[in-house]
């Protein structure tokens, strides 16, 4: 794919409009993230900053990107009710990782921190350990759109299109899982509230 460095640069400077932001977020891949990271470090060095703030409009742009995310016709998800949010979650994950590139390695100007797996995680290898460390590095932030974090940024929510006939099947699974969870977990009323919320989302589709 030919890279649109101009768009990437504008995005980094917070100069993209909502449509462009959405497009950049959608098209970001590993190389783009690396490019963003390099630019950021160069910028930090140039300005002598410890780090650069995330553009002020960043979260607002993200919200709008999430709201405007294409409907499942193009990227239908296997779990339907999950699908839209799952797609949104993949956007959020890219955001968080991008944000880490901005703020993470700033102190030393070193390369973005590479994954180290927690010793307690007995040996999930490869990409799993990468995602685990992404999770570990994630910063606390207000509860908002970016809370919907997909840990497997590069591979989350790319399921194939399926027919609408699957909905009852998915509902049945959520119902059975919730029923079990309510009885066997210490989550209080959370499982039923979750079920109600997911069913309402499914109904809105």
């Amino acid at each position, binding site marked *: 794919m030919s890279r649109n460095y101009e768009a990437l640069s504008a995005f980094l400077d917070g100069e993209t409009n909502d449509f462009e932001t959405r497009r950049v977020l959608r098209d970001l891949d590993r190389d783009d993230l690396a490019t963003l990271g390099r630019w950021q470090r160069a910028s930090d060095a140039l300005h002598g900053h410890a780090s650069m703030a995330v553009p002020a409009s960043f979260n607002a742009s993200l919200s709008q990107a999430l709201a405007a995310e294409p409907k499942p016709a193009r990227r239908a998800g296997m779990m339907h009710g999950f699908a839209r949010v799952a797609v949104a979650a993949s956007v959020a994950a890219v955001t968080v990782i991008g944000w880490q590139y901005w703020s993470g390695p700033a102190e030393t100007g070193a390369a973005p921190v590479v994954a180290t797996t927690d010793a307690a995680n007995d040996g999930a290898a490869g990409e799993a350990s990468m995602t685990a460390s992404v999770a570990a590095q994630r910063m606390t932030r207000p509860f908002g759109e970016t809370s919907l974090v997909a840990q497997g940024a590069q591979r989350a929510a790319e399921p194939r299109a399926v027919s609408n006939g699957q909905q009852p099947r998915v509902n049945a699974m959520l119902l059975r*899982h919730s029923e079990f969870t309510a009885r*066997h977990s210490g*989550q*209080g009323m959370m499982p039923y509230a979750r079920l109600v919320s997911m069913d309402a989302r499914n109904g809105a589709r």
Partner: protein
Amino acid sequence: MMRILALGLTLTAAPLAIADSLPAQTLLERMTEATQELDYQGRFLYQLGGEVSTMEIRHAVIDGEQYQRFTHLDGRLVEVLRLGDELVCLHPNGTLTRIDDPDQNLLSFRQRLSSRIPEQYNVLVDGDGRVAGRATTRMRVAPLDNHRYGYRLWLDNESHLLLKSEMVDASGLAMERVEFVTLDLEPDLGESDFELPRVIAERALETVPASRSDRIHLEAGWLPRGFHAAEGDWRRVTAERSPVAAQSYSDGLATFTVFVESVASDDIEEGVSRIGPTVAISRVAAAGERTYLLTLVGEIPQPTAERVMEGLGVEVAARP
């Protein structure tokens, strides 16, 4: 021993303060008791990512049976009702799904909790707070590895009901939140408050007899420490659909369920989806001449769920 010493010191130092502060485990037991045994009605916010819903809950014990009703107040009307042994979900399209489980043991969690808090978690009383205008005690349930999520709990000081609850990831980020805004502890609820409305269609998730020869057995090659297979069943939505096997796993707080169904090879959908703390993963497995679709649904981190999925095997055997 250290704990006793520490307690002794605290007692000497601040006898008044210790009088109304209970150990974490006792608080959790009281919470579970209160949730199941008290009559209450209230409204709460349910927050998942950037979306907030308002819901109403009614809970009553009538003739020894638990009645509970959750109503989605904004947007589409969805209700979930527990009527004794039965769970009913009213969908926004005017249909209804029932699932009954006569073998349920509502005390199971409480009994387990009163014997011990799962050792994969660290539970501590964290301070005070106010929720829905009521004084609460704040608790923190922190996982000791990264195969499960943590919780922040706000318990009502008077009734011990859970008034606010958050499920948090490894960085302390809340992925899901329930928070009461009103609570009535003397709601005067009767059976009429739990009546089902008229629906256009009704389905039941009925149990399939265990004697069928093509019964599916699920083998877990790897489970996160502390997780145990809790219960399995085999159900189908309607008679013409093929049955779906379900096997649930729990560590005492977190749960996930694996569903197994026979599929035609051209009707396959593999993938990963997440919403808040819930992850759903599907993958295909072959056993004998048939193709099966495995779907894991649960509130565990995605890498953990993926690893569980990798280790799952399906066995179709006619067991006597």
